């Protein structure tokens, strides 16, 4: 059960910690969903082509980072609104996956892994767990993390000190690209295949987790665990509760929403005091 929860939480944790960096530096990347999708696709395709799981993972990271960099380029260089370019990147990811799957894989649709990638899914969960202390340390105790946060709070401070906030924004988007690529690979590894729409909204849930966790890595991490547990619970209860399954399926979202409401209400109260 616990193992299941952590396995489910893995892509959420990876994507939301990646997204957290972009949120901290003031340019939230909403293309997480598309980045996960494209990561999962390339992980399977390249590992099938080369027979190497490591190369597949690298390709996933590269493709997802490239998408993040395109978003960054449009947002910071050409000054497009980052939400718009993020949405565009999501749509682009869907299109690219369809195009490449018709070109590279005969027939398209579900692409089954020909390597033993399914066995590597533990690696991703361990990596996600390690990411908690790592991101907590980087964000709170390194100059990079602090400047990242300052870039989000007040650009001017960085300018006066002769530091370019754009550097932090680019790198933050790159981090989100790398982590989402790994998240995508983890999804594909768990199933041992690429399935169209494999990300199934996990990138959006990861965005919610960033806010639910008040932009603190430890709470973001916990939110992901909370959501994964709710999902696991919903799967489990379907077996014996005589409630319509469609209602049970909405449970994770209801739980997340109510916790969000309660937490923000409690917080408001404590702030007033």
């Amino acid at each position, binding site marked *: 059960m616990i193992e299941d929860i952590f396995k489910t939480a893995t892509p959420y944790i990876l994507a939301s910690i990646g997204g957290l960096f972009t949120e901290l530096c003031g340019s939230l990347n909403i293309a997480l969903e598309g980045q996960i999708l494209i990561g999962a696709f390339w992980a399977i395709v390249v590992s099938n082509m080369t027979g190497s799981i490591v190369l597949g993972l690298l390709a996933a990271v590269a493709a997802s980072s490239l998408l993040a960099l395109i978003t960054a380029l449009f947002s910071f260089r050409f000054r497009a609104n980052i939400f718009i370019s993020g949405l565009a990147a999501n749509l682009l990811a869907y299109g690219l996956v369809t195009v490449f799957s018709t070109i590279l894989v005969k027939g398209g*649709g579900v692409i089954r892994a020909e390597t033993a990638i*399914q066995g590597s899914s533990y690696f991703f969960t361990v990596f996600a767990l390690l990411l908690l202390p790592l991101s907590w340390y980087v964000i709170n105790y390194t100059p990079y993390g602090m400047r990242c946060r300052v870039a989000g709070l007040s650009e001017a401070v960085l300018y006066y000190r002769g530091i370019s906030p754009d550097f932090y924004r680019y790198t933050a988007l790159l981090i989100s690209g790398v982590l989402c690529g790994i998240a995508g690979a983890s999804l594909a590894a*768990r199933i041992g*295949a690429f*399935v169209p729409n494999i990300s199934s909204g996990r990138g959006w849930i990861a965005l*919610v987790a960033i806010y639910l966790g008040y932009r603190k890595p430890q709470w973001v991490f916990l939110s992901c665990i909370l959501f994964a547990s709710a999902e*696991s619970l919903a799967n489990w209860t*379907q077996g014996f509760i005589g409630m319509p399954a*469609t209602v049970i*399926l909405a449970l994770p979202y209801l739980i997340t929403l109510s916790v969000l409401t309660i937490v923000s209400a409690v917080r408001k109260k404590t702030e007033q005091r």
Partner: protein
Amino acid sequence: MKKYFFYLIIFAAVYFTGCSAKTDSSGQAGEEPAGKGSASSSEAVSGKINIAVFIPGVTAGSPTYEMLVSGVQQAADENRETEVLVIEAGFNQGEWENKLTALAGTKNYKYIITSNPAMPEICSRVSKIYPEQKFIVLDGYLKGNNNIYTFLYNSYEQAYLIGVMGALVTGSDMKGADRNLKVGLIAGQEYPMMNNVIKPGFEKGLKSVNSAIEMDFRIVGNWYDASKGAELAGQMYNSGIDVILAIAGGAGQGVLSAAKDKGKYVLWFDNNGYSLSDGQVAGCSAIRQDKAAYEITKKAVSGTLPFGSADIAGVKEGYVYFVDDDPAFIKIVPEELRAKIKETEEMISKGAVKLEMPHF
């Protein structure tokens, strides 16, 4: 600004994950007509019979649609006077009606052939706008509209057959089977055909072998979330279920991977799925959509298809069958069980087992 955006994310999270696919097909304004539909407007004059295959979804990766296209194509290849155009309407169910309307609006196609339980209703709505257009719907049921012919597979027999196989597997001493008499069914979503025909048929098949067998029915919530399929299946396998029937589209891939993980079994529906795994698929009850599409297209071209009627075909007619000649099946399932499933199939075919298709 930030606050609004926050709500936007919540909305997106719920919209893109929770409430997927089951969109109402009516009332959504279409932005684009069916792209390729108008491309061949000049061909209509040449006296050829133009046939359009309307795929409500995407052909690649969907065996039933692949069979539909190949069947129609095969029939068209035998007759020089026929031209076939395949149009894919994509996964967004809300766009199907608009795209079908646009296709019918070109008035280039004598017949529009499609396949999906949701299509008869959509076709009858489009038929009101273009009363001269003829529709052929496989895997759907509608009687009494003189422009629409439907052909439905007897899913009750199909589900019964695979139910018998599930019961045989769970009660056997096959490598992955345990002592619990529990069998699972994972569906993509709940829909009338699933709730009123497939599920009861499957259960009836199970109980016909051993009335003590329990069925555990769960749904993924959509047809593509393979990770969720894997989680669901993993939990079911952990709870003492040793064989699961997967009718969940792409999410079925997750069921296969969970079965591989735990060393248990999967049953497959509609097409031959033995090649999808390494010894986890312990039975497939399939439909001969390619055969149906071929024969019906031939009849339509020769003008003998009885529009307005609705046919239902099952094991006896040869459109529903159990795939028992695949080497993978022969390898993992002991001969005794194979003989029993063969016997069941023959009994249904002879009418010795009465399986009346329930109302749906």
